[in-house]
């Protein structure tokens, strides 16, 4: 008879390498990074042990105790205790420790023992511990703790061989009768006693050379310097946004000319008609105009992944703590907000590490104001069309500077909104504590960066192939039908459904300087921000007829006034143009109400910002 599926759970303090271990065991590609609180969800994976036992392993958010202080820690607690309804209790708990820092994990392990679950202590990151000259008397540790102990190097090939062997050995003799669960939340004095006990065991079994990581100390001397640190942070962000603009250009030009050639080919080989128009206007001018931005998206992710893997995120949170606190934000809000530069969805999920409900809600509400990567195509398109590509002060690209300005505006508005929330809604506000482990720096791992970029690029292209493509088909259809009556002299598109819809909306948007083409682009832009670029591409391409082989950017430069362009930029800083973000807000807050609040406040801000921008620009003669 085949042995039943063995259920493992990965439990441990934050940043101890649980997800790395999970990936090593199951071959998955879950997100790994060097700061506490990366994993905020439960993830299950499967593998087969060397002896052929089928295993299910669950990766869990890191936690310092089973008390469950924040939503992510509750997930871990509920899974370990089998509280989640209909949940199977894990057969074996792998307690994962960072070997360079055993105090907190050993205390957690002593607490975990009370649950009566069979356990293995995994001394992970053993490579770093050995390098620092830390030695562990494993036999003695086994005796003291009463649980099997194994060393592991989750990020090295074969680094989990011992763990696999031990799992086989233990699972063969797992008691059928589950042991008594005597766990309950520890009182303060029990906690203290447990930590004392843990410290005693460590003193007996582990020899620590008094040699903290000197590299970390040296880097922190600069990076955490009260003034120097803030300058470094500002520089990093500045270089990041400049780079997105300047460095991606060659690759983007290449993609652009590729799509141009493709368009020419279609025009040359296919007969005039609907099929040619569909391929050229819908697919190439539409979807193609979004794919062109892939290099920029990759660059921004590269920067964020490098910062995350290096261990900088927790430092940035440290530097920004008081500044964010002034705006009423929790210190732990910084990392979710910085992740939102990539995409607001993981950013909103990451707020689960915030224990205080109201602080978490505030962070969720403002996360969509951070400039996510989906805004990049819109910003870039308009900036390249309207802002001259000259250098200021000799070395700063003006277009890059405007881009930087848009990012800064997003950040400042987010802080302002948070301030307003704090001021009007939360009268009895007491600043929540900020307590965060600052992990030692680690050299970014090429493999995990590559995997991170690959997953993101794949997601972007998949979206281009699905959401954006289907929206484009819709737009192309709306802009092509009904066809004009024979013999009409006006442009064909004027007879289309798109024009009818756009013109119906135009009066509403005329005060902010938007024409009917923009109105049409904004509606599918609700599905995803980039769609607006594709929609404009298609609409103007159809409108321009066969001769419009020009780039969408050049078309805009002739069709829009500068005031309209600036108004559009202002709109995109604020507008809630992303259905998936709204859906995640609903899920994470558990309420349609907060989703509606987010949608409304962002829409109101967008309209107001565009209105002001447009009118000021017109008054200054840019109309």
């Amino acid at each position: 008879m085949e042995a039943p599926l063995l259920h493992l759970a990965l439990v441990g303090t934050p940043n101890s390498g649980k997800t790395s271990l999970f990936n090593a065991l199951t071959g998955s590609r879950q997100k790994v990074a060097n700061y506490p609180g990366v994993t905020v969800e439960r993830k299950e994976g499967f593998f087969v042990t060397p002896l052929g036992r089928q295993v299910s392993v669950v990766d869990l958010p890191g936690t310092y105790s089973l008390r469950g202080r924040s939503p992510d820690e509750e997930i871990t607690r509920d899974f370990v205790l089998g509280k989640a309804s209909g949940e199977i209790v894990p057969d074996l708990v792998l307690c994962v420790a960072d070997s360079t820092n055993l105090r907190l994990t050993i205390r957690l392990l002593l607490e975990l023992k009370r649950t009566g679950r069979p356990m293995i202590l995994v001394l992970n990151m053993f490579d770093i511990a050995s390098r620092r000259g830390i030695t562990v008397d494993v036999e003695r540790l086994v005796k003291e703790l009463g649980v099997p102990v194994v060393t592991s190097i989750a990020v090295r090939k074969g680094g989990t061989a011992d763990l696999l062997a031990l799992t086989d050995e233990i699972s063969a003799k797992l008691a059928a009768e589950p042991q008594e669960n005597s766990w309950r939340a520890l009182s303060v004095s029990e906690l203290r006693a447990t930590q004392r006990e843990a410290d005693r065991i460590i003193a007996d079994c582990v020899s620590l050379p008094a040699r903290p990581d000197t590299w970390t100390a040296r880097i922190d001397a600069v990076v955490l310097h009260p003034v120097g640190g803030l300058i470094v942070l500002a520089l990093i962000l500045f270089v990041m946004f400049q780079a997105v603009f300047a460095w991606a250009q060659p690759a983007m030009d290449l993609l652009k000319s590729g799509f141009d050639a493709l368009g020419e080919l279609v025009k040359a080989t296919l007969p005039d008609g609907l099929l040619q128009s569909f391929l050229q206007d819908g697919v190439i001018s539409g979807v193609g105009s979004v794919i062109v931005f892939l290099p920029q998206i990759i660059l921004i992710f590269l920067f964020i992944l490098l910062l995350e893997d290096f261990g900088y995120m927790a430092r940035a949170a440290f530097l920004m703590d008081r500044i964010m606190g002034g705006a009423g934000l929790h210190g732990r809000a910084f990392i979710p907000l910085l992740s939102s530069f990539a995409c607001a969805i993981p950013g909103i999920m990451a707020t689960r590490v915030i224990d205080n409900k109201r602080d978490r809600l505030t962070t969720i509400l403002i996360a969509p104001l951070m400039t996510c990567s989906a805004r990049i195509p819109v910003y870039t398109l308009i900036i390249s069309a309207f802002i001259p590509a000259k250098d200021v002060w000799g070395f700063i690209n003006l277009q890059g500077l405007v881009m930087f300005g848009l990012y800064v505006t997003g950040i400042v508005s987010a802080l302002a909104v948070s301030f307003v929330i704090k001021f009007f809604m939360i009268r009895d506000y007491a600043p929540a504590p900020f307590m965060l482990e600052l992990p030692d720096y680690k050299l970014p791992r090429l493999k995990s960066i590559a995997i991170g970029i690959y997953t993101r690029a794949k997601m972007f292209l998949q979206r281009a192939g699905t959401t954006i493509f289907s929206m484009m088909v819709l737009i192309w259809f709306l802009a092509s039908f009904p066809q004009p009556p024979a013999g009409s002299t006006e442009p064909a598109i004027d007879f289309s459904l798109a024009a009818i819809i756009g013109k119906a909306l135009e009066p509403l948007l005329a005060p902010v300087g938007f024409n009917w083409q923009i109105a049409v682009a904004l509606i599918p832009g609700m599905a995803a921000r980039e769609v607006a670029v594709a929609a404009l591409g298609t609409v103007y391409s159809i409108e321009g007829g066969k001769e419009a082989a020009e780039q969408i950017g050049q078309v805009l430069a002739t069709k829009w006034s500068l005031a309209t362009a600036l108004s559009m930029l202002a709109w995109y800083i604020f507008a809630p143009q992303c259905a998936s973000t709204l859906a995640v807000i609903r899920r994470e807050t558990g309420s349609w109400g907060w989703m509606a609040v987010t949608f409304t406040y962002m829409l109101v801000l967008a309209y107001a910002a565009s209105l002001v921008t447009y009118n000021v620009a017109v008054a200054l003669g840019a109309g």
Partner: protein
Amino acid sequence: MTDHDEKRPHMPLGLALRGYTGVIQHLSTKDTGSALSDIELESRLIELGFVEGARVEVLHEGLVGRDPIAVRVDSITIAVRRREAMAIIVA
């Protein structure tokens, strides 16, 4: 504990300046003004390794009001605000 420690005055870690090194004497979470309840604050501090006898060193401080501080507690570095660090009595 050495004689050296006995002689040093007890003070809250929340008042220590950069470069300060000492040993935790006890936790006193009353009247720190933290948003957390006394028990919750004490639990959290212990969970991060702030227990009697642990060596601490103030490694870094922030710009605004020298807050927060980065504290080395035995083998790890923890960032805390001074307000919460007032509960940690060191010498």
